[in-house]
């Protein structure tokens, strides 16, 4: 199966690291994976976008026109990339920043107040992991959530116990929301 995930937001929101986490986790599970970031000149506040592809066979083009899944972290990118989500796709979005109404009816939209939730667990930087949690719980075929949690643990191996727990917690908070949309 070929999976495509679009991630968008502004610089500093963790678009890039979210993408790498997903790609790495897919690779860990023996899949082919590609991750392609695109960003603007600003270090913070500019727009950031990444595309993650995972597949059981070799990935030819890393530049699909549309993706099946979309993690959207801010309003600006929501407006910009709206057309890049496939019909029948899943949009997981940061409902604290995406304020426009979701008008597409051909997709599943999962609002996640990820900024707020992240603030609540005292780790504003983990908002991206919350969104990943929501997506993976809603569509387990992308990557098994358990497997992802394992990769997450590995990735932050060198960091403090506290950080690792915080990440896991963030993921689970997201997963809880996402699981309601599990098909």
């Amino acid at each position: 199966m070929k999976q495509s995930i679009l991630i968008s937001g502004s610089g500093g929101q963790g678009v890039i690291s979210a993408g790498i986490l997903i790609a790495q986790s897919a690779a860990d599970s023996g899949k082919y994976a590609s991750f392609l970031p695109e960003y603007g000149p600003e270090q913070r506040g500019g727009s950031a976008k990444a595309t993650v592809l995972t597949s059981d066979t070799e990935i030819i083009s890393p530049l699909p026109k549309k993706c099946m899944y979309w993690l959207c972290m801010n309003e600006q990118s929501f407006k910009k990339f709206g057309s890049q989500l496939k019909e029948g796709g899943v949009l997981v979005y940061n409902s604290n920043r995406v304020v426009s109404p979701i008008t597409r009816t051909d997709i599943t939209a999962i609002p996640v107040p990820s900024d707020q939730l992240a603030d609540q667990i005292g780790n504003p930087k983990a908002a991206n992991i919350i969104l990943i949690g929501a997506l993976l719980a809603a569509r387990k075929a992308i990557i098994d959530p358990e497997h992802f949690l394992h990769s997450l643990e590995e990735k932050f191996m060198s960091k403090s116990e506290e950080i690792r727990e915080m990440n896991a917690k963030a993921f689970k908070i997201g997963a809880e929301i996402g699981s309601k949309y599990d098909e």
Partner: protein
Amino acid sequence: MAKILMKGCEAVAEAAVRGGCRFFAGYPITPQNEIPEYLSRRLPEVGGHFVQGESEVASVNMVYGASTMGIRAMTSSSGPGISLKAEGISYLASCKLPALIVNVSRGGPGLGSIQPAQSYYLQATKALGHGGFRVMVFAPYSLQEAVDLTYEAFEYAERDRNPVFLLMDGCLGAIMELVELPEMKEPTDENTKKWNLSKKEGEKRPPRALTPIYPEVILEMENKLRGELYKKWEKEDVKVEEFMTEDAEYIVVAYGIAARVAKEAVLTLREQGCKIGMIRPITLYPFPKQSFHKLDYDKVKAIIDIELTIPAQMRDDIALEVMNRAPIFEYGRSGGNLLDDDGVYDAIMKVIKEVG
């Protein structure tokens, strides 16, 4: 060895180290920063040297210095920085010094955009600097290919005593995908010891000079030899992928990231029964002329040049080989806007409809 997920720039940097690179000098510029950043950590580990030059100009000249000592040396940059290295690259060619120059390309001209583009084809293949010299231009389309070409690059550079140019579009520099890294080569000056200026402890030998100054007669001779070298490349060193070209009625020509997107389109179209194939130059110079000569022009209805740049830059090189035997179309994006599967598919379909 197992495949690991790596960032484009870092994979290339590691491949260079494994290929024997022991000196790097460079200057920050997006989208190649991960190369110097990686090497600033990595080179000292293997007894090599990393210098952050005060500029691209200084950096290429530091590489020039290192290369005179028989050290495998490299620099990397992007667009504006490569332009600034133009004089230095010309000096490397003139003094017959091997070196690896990596250009992770972005949109141009001028400051351009830091987003990926393939806007340096003409500069890379025709005139990296003044004086009519040429360099081999490698244009990988996957990280694995980038790694393999980088690993080999120094061998070519030393064989020919000429710099080698790795042209990666920004997508490849930024992408993460799976690669298998080659074995670590021990650095050796086997290929350069006849002329390099290094001296082993206590070694005595007649003085040597490596300078860009040649008397007229010698300079003319060297230029003739250069001309012959370039011809030899065309015969012996072309790298190309010919993909489903045998029975093709439509031939897509693309390199680097454009070729990946195009290949996807070719595969889709094949599934739909369209006889389409792709010629993918891996060496942009020497250009894979034979691949075009081999085509059966009774069958070929159109050639479609797909590049991540506008106006197209490779078209004339294609036209020079196709010699009016088939019409050539072009499609591209530019300015940091990317090609995508659908866009390329549509562009090809448009040609097919037009040509019939």
